[in-house]
């Protein structure tokens, strides 16, 4: 029996827009176990991003319970939530969110910077290891604007890895990338998943979701479908089938 990383029960989230209350999540039950690679799917407005924000402790639910790695989120203060994000979570955003004018290495070091237990030498070593893991050991001292979109997203993935989180949360991480680069990123994530990382990946693209082990489909604040991916795609294999583009 694998360890349960995420356990959500009867989770609701309301937004108040003026006098109208929007029920973004209407009672979600969800369990994600260690080593899973879960796709959260749905059209825009289905509540999938809200779900991810709550899973990432970036936002608080209106009601319901949420256990992350056995810890209940409900009673934690802002600072405790920040600590938890620092130790247990890794984020990958659609728009990378790298600090400009800061080198790739320093961007990756950023989460460790907020962990007072880690000395600067260890921080540097772990950041270098993370960049190596995403295949960017030769780009460590480049600035974000000197990197391509795919490379920037790799830096972001390295940043999400560096604190050795229990789960990596990705929000449309391939949304800004072309097909080839998307597949490259997926190959990287599949590889990380193979090595035991739990990943939750929000997407609305069905072909991207095919790379994962389980799909959860949201609509109007409910989970309408939940199934294991049967004929799962392998990103490395698929990359070989793509026509090789002429380099300009």
């Amino acid at each position: 029996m694998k360890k349960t990383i995420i356990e959500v029960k009867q989770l609701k989230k309301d937004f108040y827009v003026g006098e109208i209350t929007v029920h973004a999540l209407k009672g979600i039950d969800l369990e994600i176990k260690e080593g899973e690679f879960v796709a959260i799917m749905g059209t825009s407005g289905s509540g999938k991003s809200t779900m991810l924000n709550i899973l990432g402790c970036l936002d608080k639910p209106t009601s319901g319970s949420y256990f992350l790695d056995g810890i209940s989120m409900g009673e934690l203060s802002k600072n405790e939530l920040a600590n938890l994000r620092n130790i247990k979570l890794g984020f990958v955003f659609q728009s990378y969110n790298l600090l400009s004018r800061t080198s790739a290495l320093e961007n990756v070091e950023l989460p460790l910077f907020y962990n007072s237990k880690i000395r600067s030498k260890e921080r540097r070593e772990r950041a270098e290891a993370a960049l190596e893991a995403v295949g960017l050991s030769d780009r460590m001292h480049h600035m974000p604007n000197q990197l391509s979109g795919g490379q920037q997203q790799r830096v972001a993935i390295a940043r999400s890895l560096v604190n050795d989180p229990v789960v990596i949360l990705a929000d449309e991480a391939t949304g800004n990338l072309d097909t080839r680069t998307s597949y490259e990123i997926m190959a990287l994530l599949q590889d990380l998943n193979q090595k035991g990382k739990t990943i939750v990946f929000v997407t609305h693209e069905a072909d991207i979701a095919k790379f994962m082990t389980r799909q959860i489909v949201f609509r109007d604040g409910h989970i309408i479908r939940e199934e294991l991916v049967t004929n799962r795609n392998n990103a490395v294999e698929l990359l070989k089938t793509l026509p090789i583009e002429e380099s300009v």
Partner: protein
Amino acid sequence: MLGIIIGVASVIVMLAIGQGSKKSIQDQMSGMGTNLIFAMPGAEQKGGVRMGNSDAKSMKLTDVDAIEKNCPAISDVSPEVRSSGQAVLGNQNWPTTIYGVNNKYFNIKKYTIGRGRTFTETEIQTYAKVCLVGQTVVENLFGKADPIGQSIRFKNIPLLIIGILGEKGENGMGQDQDDLVMAPYTTVQKRILAITHIQSIAASAASESQNEAAIEQMTESLRHSHKLKTGDADDFQVRSQSEMVQMFSSISNIMTILLGAISGISLLVGGIGIMNIMYVSVTERTREIGLRLSVGGRGNDILLQFLIESILLSVFGGVIGISLGIVATQIMASIMSWPVVITTLSVIMSFLVCSAIGIFFGWYPARKAASLNPIDALRYE
């Protein structure tokens, strides 16, 4: 950073111009001799008959020494003895007045030495037959010839001319201040007038603001050396140019108010510039703050970072601004020959105010952003 630099620099330049104008007006005012104080013998009574002032012989050289010793508010003091008569050179003559004074008198009455020198200590002690002459006397007796080294006679005493006074023009009452001869007071006392007393005492207060104190101290010193008991009337009069002093102090007050307004406004303008720049640049970084929050930075960590950043920015910007302001001031002073004065106070004040504003408006929007939900900060456009 640019905002702070320009803010601090402009405030310093504005203050330097303001202070400079004030200083130059002050200099012009005191060039008119506003701190001049005179003491002369008062009306004397002899058996109910009032005698003229000039007959009184109550002023002594010891009074001068006492004033010099006992009056801290008085910077210079000189005895004064005068005599009117004809100055004679060969077949020329000119009616003028000879003043017997010491070397401090030139400073008290704001006379400059045009050429030559003033009296030596020995010349004063030995009643030396030397003198300095005013421009009017030079013109009337010598024309274009060089008077230095020549002798004129005054009441049959030959006096060697050792210097020429700088031109001073008329005083407020239309009296020609260049129509005079100055000799050591001892010379005039012993050789020309044959008296032992002095006719009056000229002094100058250390500064305009000490005028009142100077008059008081001088009166006290004279009463003491004249051995007057409490209740006795003064046997002398102390006079200052109080009207001019009043006018001066009111002009000086207006300048102070003007300067205050200038510095207030320039600080305000500089401050608003800094405020805007800091506010905008930190607000633009709301997304960065969101990211830092999402990777586990606590609100306080992030605030501290922004606080340190804005302190560094303000201090460095301030230092550069100060240097830039000083350089700009000097350039302006040399190109436009405008009087400028940079005071330590203006530098410190502009630096402190600008830094404080810079730090506050670097910190405040950061605090606002750090207190947002991380997701709202991340989505901030």
